[in-house]
């Protein structure tokens, strides 16, 4: 019997997340090698139409009030029930704030092997993952039976997973009484700040900025370039900039004409949010920093040795 390639469709507040299309693209590539179909799993409440823009051979849809928005307990219970009836060759999850809440616990519960951080399907139908902040690559294979795979963005474009789905099968929700995880509300970010997702020039700072006082230097640079300062996770966690300036998996994805990064190593969660930038220029003292793998231009230097001459040069070029 052919085992099909499954994926869990992610959606938040009525919007299908980009990762869902990326999962569809990866599943399509693997399905072609396994001679299998691509099956999308969609949970929701009156949300069957969310499947309509995805390239899928088949959809399994489960409707329930408690599945209206993602919560780990309801999703885990429903997926566990579904995997008792269907036996995929592989099941793809986004390695996202949603997918990662359930993928590993379902793997443990169902005794399925799991492979993290896939970015691409190999020519031989294997899984290529990227770990250690992009510094290490791993090739692995699907095990016998069902293997779960969590997928990072980067290897496929969302457009590759767009299309229209084939038939829809309904799946009846299991007992969802007494859920231990409940979503009480969404809290939208403070709209008072600039929207870095719309800025043309971004000066991005990371751990390499070292102290809060040094942010002034980035501000000066941004002022000369007519841009805005944004940051990777460590800067936000220190409380040096508001969350609205966070670029990364749980922050914003950006697409400026210029992304000038200062002291950002380029962890996977950061890089996946800047790949649509037109030009990326990276300044970092570590020659092996993964940011240099996606930047068009790089400068290996101690940021604080460069900043003064750079401010001076830019200043006189503008005069």
């Amino acid at each position: 019997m052919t085992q099909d390639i499954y994926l869990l469709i992610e959606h938040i507040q009525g919007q299908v997340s980009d990762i869902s299309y990326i999962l569809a693209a990866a599943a399509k590539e693997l399905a072609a090698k396994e001679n299998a179909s691509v099956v999308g799993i969609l949970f929701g409440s009156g949300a069957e139409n969310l499947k309509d823009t995805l390239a899928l051979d088949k959809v399994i849809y489960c409707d329930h009030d408690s599945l209206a928005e993602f919560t780990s307990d309801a999703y885990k219970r429903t997926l566990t029930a579904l995997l008792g009836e269907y036996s995929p060759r592989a099941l793809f999850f986004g390695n996202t704030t949603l997918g990662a809440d359930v993928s590993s616990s379902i793997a443990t519960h169902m005794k399925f092997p799991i492979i993290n951080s896939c970015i691409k399907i190999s020519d031989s139908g294997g899984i290529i993952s990227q770990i250690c902040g992009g510094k290490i690559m791993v090739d692995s294979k699907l095990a016998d039976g069902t293997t779960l795979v969590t997928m990072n963005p980067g290897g496929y474009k969302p457009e590759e997973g767009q299309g229209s789905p084939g038939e829809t099968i309904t799946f009846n929700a299991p007992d969802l009484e007494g859920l231990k995880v409940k979503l009480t509300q969404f809290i939208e970010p403070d709209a008072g700040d600039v929207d870095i997702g719309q800025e043309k020039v971004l000066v991005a700072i990371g751990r390499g900025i070292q102290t809060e006082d040094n942010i002034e230097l980035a501000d000066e640079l941004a002022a000369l370039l007519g841009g805005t300062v944004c940051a990777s996770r460590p800067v936000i966690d220190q409380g040096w900039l508001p969350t609205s300036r966070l670029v990364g998996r749980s922050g914003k994805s950006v697409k400026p004409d210029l992304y000038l990064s200062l002291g950002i190593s380029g962890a996977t969660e950061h890089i996946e949010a800047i790949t649509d930038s037109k030009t990326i220029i990276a300044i970092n003292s570590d020659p092996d920093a993964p940011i240099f793998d996606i930047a068009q231009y790089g400068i290996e230097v101690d940021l604080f040795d460069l900043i003064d001459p750079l401010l001076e040069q830019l200043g006189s070029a503008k005069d």
Partner: protein
Amino acid sequence: MTEIVVISRLVPDLVEELEIASNGTALDRAWLRLIINEFDNHAIEQAILIKEKVGANVTIISPEAEGVEDMLFTTAAKGADKLIKITGVGDEKPTNLSLAETLAEIIKEINPDLILNGVQAHDDITGDLAPQLADLLGMPYVGYISGVELGDGKVTAFKEYPGGVLAEMEITLPAVLGIQASEEPPRYVAISKVRQMMSTASIDELPAGDLKIDGDAPIDRMYLPEAAERAEMLEGSEEEVAEKLTSLLQDLGLL
């Protein structure tokens, strides 16, 4: 008293050069410099913040590794009450599932209300530790948390979604949370205070169960990425580089 357990792991320092072991399927750990997993550091901070706010007994559990005692004593200096080191781990990184099985046995004895762990570790390849542990303990799991308020028999946690949106989740205790960021940045403690802990605090040692090195999905190869499409590097003295960058920005029409 509320019992909180935090699992804290050491991970390879990514600032150092990473090498592949001779078997070709693992990191060469012989010369690896290890540092605390930064998400675990946030989990420790979150536990201490809860303790300071509402009172709690905080236990830190860590698998043994080079430097783990220093890390544990540092958490004691921050306010952790009990330190546990899991021994018999060996030089290779065990799979998260087998580590979770060992942790589950230890944690059942402690019977905590809340278990905090970093939401991820950058060297994980076969699943994430916290959700695996949650399943083994039959507890709910929610990850990517950046704020925790302890209530009566439940916890309110703020989960990060893309675009800066937060989801407020109400979770029945006991529960496992994967911490993305603590409400305050992890505190620093003076080295003198850590030294003091070395002479006053103690670390309990508990043996690991059956740890496995290989996951069920076969790993064929681990390797360094090919740097074929690397950035074009601007070279020279700082002044020369500043000049090159300025004219590059002019050429790109960005000045």
